[in-house]
């Protein structure tokens, strides 16, 4: 019977292996598209060797996980509310990037601060500090470093 930690390990290794196989197949396409003659040591050679090593390491890890009698050394498992917190935080980061792309930094950072405040429930002084930080950072980068955020 597989433990939860072992199952998680297999899922992770499965994802890495699937991506590796896909990237391995891709190496045949970037040669063909440009019409470069297939050469043993062409630009695809190194990624192929590397992906081969990655696949071998994944298989070795899978065998090790399967044979290991002790539970794998992963970080402690996460509770459901904590996982929800993390997923929401990831979502907020994603939303921030989207809004920044569409409406600019100040709007995106404003939305980010509000959503983070809802998620993390900071104290009033912390909220004020974040509210002060956003325009200050914007001013500093746009006026001092000349990077228009």
């Amino acid at each position, binding site marked *: 019977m597989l433990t939860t930690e072992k199952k998680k390990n297999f899922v*992770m290794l499965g994802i890495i292996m699937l991506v590796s196989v896909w990237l391995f197949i891709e190496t045949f396409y970037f040669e063909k598209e440009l019409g470069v003659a297939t050469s043993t040591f062409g630009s695809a050679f190194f990624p192929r060797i590397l992906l081969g090593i990655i696949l071998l*390491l994944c298989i*070795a890890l899978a065998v090790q996980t399967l044979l290991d009698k002790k539970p794998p050394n992963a970080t402690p498992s996460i509770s459901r509310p*904590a996982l929800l917190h*993390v997923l929401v935080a*990831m979502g907020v980061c994603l939303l921030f990037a989207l809004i920044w792309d569409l409406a600019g930094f100040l709007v995106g950072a404003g939305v980010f601060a509000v959503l983070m405040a809802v998620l993390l429930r900071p104290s009033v002084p*912390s909220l004020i500090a974040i509210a002060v930080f956003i325009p200050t950072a914007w001013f500093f*980068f746009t006026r001092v470093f000349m*990077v228009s955020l």
Partner: protein
Amino acid sequence: MEFSLDFLQSAWAQSITITNLLLLLAGVAIGIVIGVLPGFGPPLGIALALPFTYYISPVEAFSLLLGIYNGAMYGGSITAVLIGVPGTSPAAATVLDGHPMLQNGRGAEAMNLSLVGSACGGLFSTIVLVVISPLLASFAMSFGPAEYFALGMLGITVVGKVSGNNALKGILMGALGILLTTVGFDPISGQARYTFDVVSLYKGIPFIPLLMGLFAMPEMLLKVEQLGTQTVLKEIASVYTFPEFAKIFKHKALMVRSAIIGTLIGIMPGGGGDIAAFLAYSEAKRLSPTPEQFGQGMEEGVISAETANNATVGGALIPTLTLGVPGSAAAAVLMGAFMVHGMTPGPRLFSDEPVLMYSIFIGLFLINFMLFFVGCLFIKYAVKFILVPMQLVVPLVFLLCFIGSYASEGSMYGVWITVISGSCGYCFVKHGFPVIPCVLGVVLGPLIEGSFRQALILNDDNPAGLFLRPISMGIYVLMIFNLFGGQIWDWIKKHLPSKAAK
């Protein structure tokens, strides 16, 4: 690099400017704060500051970053003494005697021992760095692509082995890091790889946004996860008084011994401050006339651990600067700073950028003196940063990451890379896959692929040319010992006595 007074004068003139001195000071102070904040270590501190160094000269950039590196290495000891929780992993050994000293009413002494030990350890390793690195760089000038390929592989396997609980996972992450560097134009043929017709991908995966994603975001997401269980410290006693040197320097032999251990461990790729601190601590305990008192508040315990962990800084910079193989996670991030400023760490740095090298040496000496003075003046205030709530720190660090990623690329491409790599990094960390080898893979990837293919071209496509040169063979032997040394030793112990008995 031969000694040149002209270069030294030029480096001195660039180092002793008001701006540079202020940056050194700021670096040390920021580093101490980074060290005090639980879960923030030197690599994260350097990574967060890296995008800001775009806008200053390389000498100033390294002053700031090296100040943060040294300051953070020391800063972790403040919380180790005061609350028994190391701010950084290298300060873990300091807890063993530092916190009991506080409980015995000798907190101020413990703080002073750790401060003076840190500064002296840093100074010692800087002297070793100044003496050894030009010699090693001259030797490394004779290295060809085969040797560089072997060195790159050694770096990945060593860091892969020591950075987590499972060597296979570490090496797998290192390989994934190298794979990321194959995105974009092939360095030899100029052919596009893994670009999927996305214009931004043609220039490859940018280092700083990736670094922010892999280092800072998972750390902050872990903080979000832990916020429910966080214990808030209401009050911290103000325990600081000025150091009494006569009392501290009676341990000078122990300090020298610990500094040697720290420097040697630092030189080994992947040998971190925590290993050095514990090794120096156990050595101090072994040689002490009263080993049974260790763990109950022994001065020797604090001074050995702190001297050794700061001595790893100079030690770690030796392979970083001379061979382009980072000696620690922080040094790997520091290598990114060279890339940001258009330089490649390695032996050529000493001939191509001698003024910068001298400036780094001068900067390190100044940093260790400043560490002492800033430490004396700043400890009282730095301690207060433990009270800063994570509800404030987490959003601010997220914002800093995104701004830094945007600024480094000048477009949203950097921000997207940070968001994606950060989410992946968190999943990796949660499943016990260390991210440090991945960062190292990204740093060493171009060197490994470039030297691999150059070596093949030079040897008429014969792969044997990669392995049969004497220096590269020696490096591979080291690599095999690193990977299988434990098993080989076990085998020898198991089989040799039985054969001898027969």
